[in-house]
């Protein structure tokens, strides 16, 4: 596979576990060596450089902070290990640490030890530590994987702002599609060590290249169908085929929330409603379409009155995606 990150870009590597995304990141960092292939940075052969000379800032899933050092010592580590003639003076290091603490919003915690911080704070220290060396590239390996959902969402927003301010090319590994779509400029989707699709979050979400990507990026409903000319037929429902759809027997995918309901005599897929359950703002509708049990998602206030257990309705997928079988 070949993959290029653009300057100052926020690139997400997204894939299920075992897809090789972390390995790819570790190859970029130099912590692992590829069997073949090349890594270039700005034209320079990266594989020829040892880890410590690559100047990449790496943030690990489990923080990897130095437990016996204070927050300030952790952040300053990358500066203090420099050879004497490149090492900034004590005052300069102190100034940098204060600056970085401001940046990650941990003012006043420089004397604490990592064990005295919360998970979110620790990860921010790890980030400040990685930024201290003025990295040419920032590598984040599931940085929020060990945090709870609320903190994760907060940090996500904050990380994006930080990236925009610091202006460092960032490569971010995650298995959480929501995180990748929310954060990245471009998303690279990996499967079994291969690049499946690369593109802007919206483009990838709206036009998944393969059934795998469709399935991976969100919930999916799947039915067999037939494309003839410009018409897509699923059971007794006919609609315009999406552009570029293959001819013949196809797999039709749609999102369970991208649907419209119609009365039983209207247009759409005949569905028998089995159960309706309110889940917060959404309503989960279990129904049987073409003999297949599906979970559809509707929005409470806009749900038509006809959608109730035991009734028949028509379900019209708004944006079906078609893949050759």
């Amino acid at each position, binding site marked *: 596979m070949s993959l290029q990150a653009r300057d100052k870009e926020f690139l997400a590597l997204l894939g299920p576990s075992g897809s090789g995304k972390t390995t790819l990141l570790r190859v970029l*960092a*130099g*912590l692992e060596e590829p069997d073949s292939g090349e890594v270039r940075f700005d034209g320079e052969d990266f594989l020829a450089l040892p*880890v*410590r*000379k*690559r*100047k*990449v*800032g*790496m943030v*690990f899933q*489990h923080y*990897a*902070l*130095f*437990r*016996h*050092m204070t927050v300030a010592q952790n952040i300053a*580590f*990358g500066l203090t*290990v*420099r050879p004497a003639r490149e090492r900034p003076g004590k005052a300069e290091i102190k100034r940098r640490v204060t600056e970085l603490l401001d940046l990650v919003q941990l003012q006043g915690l420089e004397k604490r*030890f*990592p*064990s*005295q911080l919360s998970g979110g704070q620790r990860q921010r220290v*790890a980030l400040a*530590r*990685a930024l*201290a*060396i003025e990295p040419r590239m920032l590598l984040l390996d599931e940085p929020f994987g060990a945090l709870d959902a609320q903190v994760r969402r907060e940090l996500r927003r904050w990380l994006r702002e930080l990236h925009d301010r610091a202006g460092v090319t960032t490569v971010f590994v995650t298995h959480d599609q929501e995180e990748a779509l929310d954060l990245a400029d471009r998303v690279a989707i990996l499967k079994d060590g291969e690049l499946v699709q690369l593109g802007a979050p919206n483009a990838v979400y709206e036009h998944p290249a393969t059934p795998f990507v469709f399935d991976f990026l969100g919930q999916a409903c799947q039915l067999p169908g037939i494309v003839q000319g410009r018409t897509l037929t699923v059971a007794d429902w006919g609609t315009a085929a999406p552009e570029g759809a293959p001819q013949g027997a196809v797999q039709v995918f749609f999102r369970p929330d991208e649907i419209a309901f119609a009365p039983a005599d209207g247009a759409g897929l005949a569905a028998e409603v089995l159960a309706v359950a309110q889940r917060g703002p959404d309503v989960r509708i279990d129904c049987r379409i073409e003999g297949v049990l599906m979970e559809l998602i509707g929005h409470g206030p806009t749900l038509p009155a006809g959608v109730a257990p035991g009734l028949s309705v028509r379900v019209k997928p708004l944006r079906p995606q078609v893949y050759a079988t």
Partner: protein
Amino acid sequence: MTDRFSVPPVPRPVTDAWPRRPRLVEHSILPGLKLSLGITLVYLTLIVLLPLAALAVRPWEIGLDGVVRTLSDPRVASALRVSFGISLLAALTNAPLGLLIAWTLTRYEFPGRRILDALVDLPFALPTAVAGIALTAIYSPTGPVGAFAAQFGIKTAYSPIGIFIALVFIGLPFVVRSVQPVMQDLDKDVEEAAQTLGATDIQRVTRVVLPALAPALLSGVSLAFARAVGEYGSVIFIAGNMPLKTEIAPLLIVIKLEQYDYAGAAAIGLAMLAISFGALVAMNAVQIYLSRRGRA
């Protein structure tokens, strides 16, 4: 049933504002504190405290100046110096060596690693007298190593060097076995983080790995030291036991016992106890400080 309409009682606020009697012991949700603490105290009293108390009482039979006279005897002072001095030296020597062995055993895969690993425990298992005889056989002027060293005018057995060798031998497993598990549990990604931050291999070891190992290493060294101070069996064979030169304090105690000078023996024992206890307390304090750092 007027009850049904009454306002439910306001739950009592569980806050620090509630007056609370200060407790001597922090309350634990684990039951059995009294029982387990009781058994611990009784056991420690029977096994450790009572014998030590008997030891502490014994020397005063000869009065304070008797004790002072015993301890200021040049032969006794020299024996104490030899025992503690060489024990400390041996324990300190074992620090880098034990560290290196633990490093080799945990960091590398090579054929025979498990056998080597088992060999480390041998000084634990061997009766110390056997170890003493074996060491003497090798290091005495007629033994292979001893003869070699003699060519350079170094006398290994029957000299302080011999005592040192024996004490290094018996102390080594303490250091290795204390450090090894901690080294095994070191997170790999912490070292990798150091690498990405630009640390050289040496900086990675000295600034990241060693500080993490320091508490375990210190604990291993103090165990090795404590063991060396009390060592008797292996040393008396190799030491030569010349008064004022290579006579260790435990041997002197045995000599006094054989002369039925129980109070004198107990006086030396008490002195050893006091010095050992002081040293262990000091080492423990440092160790607590080291392991508190970053874990509080």
